[in-house]
């Protein structure tokens, strides 16, 4: 019984309960960046988890290599199915799982903007980018964001900063976040849409934007 409850909790929070962030060495961390949820289970995601890893360099998008000095990096994780069953959550499509209760397809990505020239979109899936220059953002200022889907503005996407939902994107995909702490910013955007109910019941899109704010 206890295991079942725990499984249900894990399933319901699977997509949004964790943080991802990119460090200065272009390693993607997975865990709980916010100290209030620190469980000691932070880890670095391996490249096998990634669908694509791209670098924005001199205004052009290329595959990321170690020697690149990227103005922005963008990691798209491989899509993962999560299907809830009476005996746990399985990472398989609904139609390949015994006794499925419900199922989702998680589509995640994460971007880090390193400089003012890294504001260009990668035009792939759900993506957050800045409309104002990161070097000019100070504590108390607003990060003026745009939510894009395949490079086009997307409205109605929930945006959260430091675990607090602060609003949804408007008709132009715009949403503003006030910066309240220095250091690496971790802003998330997410939305859901219905699946075909055969392979999965819903698709959950989530993306994270990182950039540094100095004092």
């Amino acid at each position, binding site marked *: 019984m206890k295991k079942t409850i725990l499984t249900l909790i894990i399933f319901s929070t699977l997509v*949004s309960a964790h943080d991802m962030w990119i460090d200065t060495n272009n390693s993607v961390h997975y865990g709980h960046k916010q100290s209030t949820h620190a469980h000691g289970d932070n880890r670095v995601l391996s490249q096998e988890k990634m669908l694509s890893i791209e670098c924005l360099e001199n205004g052009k998008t290329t595959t990321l290599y170690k020697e690149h000095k990227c103005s922005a990096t963008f990691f798209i994780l491989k899509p993962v199915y999560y299907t809830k069953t009476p005996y746990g959550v399985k990472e398989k499509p609904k139609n390949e799982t015994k006794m499925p209760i419900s199922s989702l397809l998680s589509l995640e990505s994460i971007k880090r903007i390193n400089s003012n020239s890294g504001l260009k979109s990668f035009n792939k899936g759900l993506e957050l980018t800045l409309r104002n220059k990161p070097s000019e953002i100070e504590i108390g200022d*607003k990060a003026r964001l745009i939510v894009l889907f395949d490079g086009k503005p997307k409205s109605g996407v*929930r*945006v*959260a*900063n430091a*675990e*607090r*939902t*602060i*609003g*949804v*994107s*408007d*008709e132009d995909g715009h*949403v*503003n*976040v*006030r910066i309240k702490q220095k250091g690496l910013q971790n802003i*998330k955007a*997410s939305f859901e849409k219905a699946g075909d109910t055969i392979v999965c019941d819903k698709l959950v899109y989530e993306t994270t934007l990182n950039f540094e704010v100095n004092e």
Partner: protein
Amino acid sequence: MKKVSLFTLALTTAAFAHHGVASLSIAGLEGPGAPLETTSTATLPEGKMLSYAKIEDASYTKYTSAVDDEIDRTTYLMYGFGYGFTPYLSAYAFIPYYTKKREDDIGSSGFHDIKLMMALGFKYDDGLMLNPKTESLDDMEDWHFTTYVNVSLPTGEGEVTFPNQNIDFDPFLQLTFGAPSFMLGFSATKWYGDAVTLSFDTSYNTFLEHTYSNNIRVKFADEMRASGAFTYKLYTNQKSKFRLDADLEANYLKIGRDAVNGVAQDATGGEILYTTIGMRLFYNTISIGAGVKIPTWTNLNEDSDQQGAEGKEKYRAIFTFSTLF
């Protein structure tokens, strides 16, 4: 992620003695608080309607044992409807129902002049701009402003008589100002991102002269108001969509002298500073406010003769109800 419910609305309408004035306050489960009397700056969401009711009951301190023509008690009911034409432009109509009773038990009761109001909302975000359709909670921390105009139309009964009473026609017991009145107001709100909201407003209200059927010409005195409110969010539960705010306000009112047949009247006008203490509860799309408003400082023109006038209340009990649909 928590689900954000940004627009549960409350609206307050202040009605001071015989001079009814509408003021507006709107807040949500998240976001800035809404005072009871001071006008906040939130406008109605585009395409949304607001239904509103307010009761204000005032009892006046008696300074003399004489039973005369001074007001003893007033009860004002205000029904209101609002509509958000755009994110920055809201329109309201208010239908007041007034009951006034003098010390000698003579009084009047009925619908008073309809009031029409328009509110234009704007904010400062790297420059002044009209309220956008969508704002994040962080955007709501910007200074927000509203300028509003209010016009009352003489739709109430102006020939209230007292056939079985041995009194003259009393213009102050009529259910209309007899002529339009005009108000221009300005409000500002600053939300500090969590529990504290500060609101400020000021307005000026002027009345046109009206000649009643007995050839008495009356011009009600102009009024100037300035208020400040401190609202504190005591409790919020997003799951049950419940929020409870405490409200503390200072409401300054300066009234000129009423004029009858062009002559400024004694025992009218002056300055009053009220203190309002109240609570506001939000549940889903319903808001209920309750409070008491007490004159804490007065500088009336003929203080000892102004029993039954503004500034001489024992209290004003205020109750509001509003819902958005």
